[in-house]
């Protein structure tokens, strides 16, 4: 029964990683850049929700909505100000800018909200579901995280495969020049991608802090790196890959903590990544398409 409990915890943590990883992977897919500030957008989302619900006493749902709106706008602004001017610049310049943006957000949070840890209020009702006569208990947050991830996954799959804008997004991620020749506004599509990724980051931030309720300006850093790992693990650029990579990473982390060692869980997670990349450099679901001549 302990095994099942760990498995569910792992899936739940993995769901949060997957939601964050979606932001990394979608942005990489279209802008071919690693947005290392993505993790810090999570932190901003969590702070917004924290202030909305505990300082201004707004209902949790309003707090979440506010966090999503603020992060969506933040994502668009970051892209416009920091990344768009570098569209034609070398990859390294963009990467360094993204790292700089990450530090900027962390330090801005430090100035605005200080380094004192905030105790994140429960936005998901506390309580547990009891199964098998109390042998297996699952908290509501665990269930909500998994459900959120499933809903987001289904919605994104529908969006990218059925809607005109979603298909345009896939077209842009394959060939921006050809997309322009179709009449697609590539800059607008990139903005939309950042908006969606950052909105999802806000949801992930709220879920993360509901499960682990200590909020500091560096809260987003480690989950950000882990989710990035998950995205690479699953195959960067692939939406199902982010999902699979996130869930697997969560399960590996929880199992490593439970059965091996709490201190060693992170090294184990990253060791798994290295092994996967040695065997499959494109990640689990990464695409390797050969061009026809």
């Amino acid at each position, binding site marked *: 029964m302990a095994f099942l409990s760990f498995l569910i915890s792992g899936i739940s943590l993995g769901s949060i990683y997957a939601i964050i990883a979606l932001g990394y992977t979608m942005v990489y897919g279209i802008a071919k850049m690693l947005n290392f500030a993505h993790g810090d957008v999570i932190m901003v989302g969590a702070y917004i929700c924290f202030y909305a619900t505990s300082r201004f006493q707004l209902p949790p749902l309003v707090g979440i909505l506010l966090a999503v709106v603020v992060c969506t706008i933040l994502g668009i602004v970051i892209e416009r100000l920091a990344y768009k001017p570098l569209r034609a610049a070398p990859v390294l310049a963009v990467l360094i800018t993204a790292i700089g943006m990450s530090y900027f957000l962390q330090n801005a949070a430090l100035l605005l909200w200080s380094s004192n840890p905030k105790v994140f209020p429960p936005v998901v009702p506390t309580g547990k579901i009891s199964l098998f006569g109390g042998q297996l208990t699952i908290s509501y947050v665990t269930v909500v995280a998994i459900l959120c991830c499933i809903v987001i996954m289904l919605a994104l799959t529908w969006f990218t495969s059925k809607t005109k804008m979603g298909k345009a997004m896939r077209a842009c991620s394959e*060939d921006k020049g050809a997309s322009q020749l179709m009449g697609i506004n590539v800059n607008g599509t990139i903005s939309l991608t950042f908006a969606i990724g950052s909105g999802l980051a806000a949801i992930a931030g709220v879920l993360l802090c509901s499960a682990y309720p200590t909020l500091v300006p560096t809260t987003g850093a480690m989950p950000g790196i882990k989710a990035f790992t998950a995205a690479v693990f699953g195959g960067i650029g692939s939406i199902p890959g982010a999902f699979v990579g996130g869930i697997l990473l969560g399960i590996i982390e929880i199992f490593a903590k439970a059965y091996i060692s709490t201190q060693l869980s992170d090294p184990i997670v990253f060791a798994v990544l290295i092994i996967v990349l040695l065997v499959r450099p494109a990640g689990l679901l990464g695409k390797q398409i050969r061009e026809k001549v």
Partner: protein
Amino acid sequence: MEPILKVEDINVYYGSIHAIKGISFYVNEGEIVTLIGANGAGKTTTLQTVSGLLRSKTGSISLQGEDISNVPAHKRVARGLAQVPEGRRIFLQMSVQENLEMGAFTQSNSGIAKDLERVFEYFPRLKERRRQIAGTLSGGEQQMLAMGRALMSHPRLLMLDEPSMGLAPILVEQIFEIIQTLHKAGTTILLVEQNAQAALSIADRGYVLETGKIILADNASALLKNDAVQKAYLGGGGG
């Protein structure tokens, strides 16, 4: 009559390389005009400047009398320009039908079904393979898809960049037949080709490009007989 496309004195640079040196040409409604020349003469660069992927530092590009030099590439499509790019550049990971739908991005959804049928009439192979991923198509089919995709936007001017590149002779013939069919149906065509013989034999007029300049402009039939053209691009003859 106002030409449908009028390009005046464009100069295009790649960094410090002066790729297009003051080119001017025009295309009248209903014509097939071809730009021929060796590899690196600037044919593709010229087309990309017309479609807006590249910008000229000088001069102007007018479509149906309107200056579009400062209109971004994606907005030129709605004004009636479509380009089939060199190397086809179809969306390899999307299905055949999705590729065609992307071609109709500027169109309203209501007309897409009818436009698909029209494209499938020109290219029946695409209909058979509509659900297939575009990357699995053969080279000839990919060229057909690229052309069908461009037709989905109802272009006033269709620009084709090396449609015969890398195709077997029988397929080249087929592609050129389709170009003529499209022309008869009323599409104005600007054709860039290394296969000068094939291009000039279907074109009304032609321009010969050499190192970023137009060195000859004449009726296609006259260019076919021109000694210099024969020597340089048609494999001897007149020498």
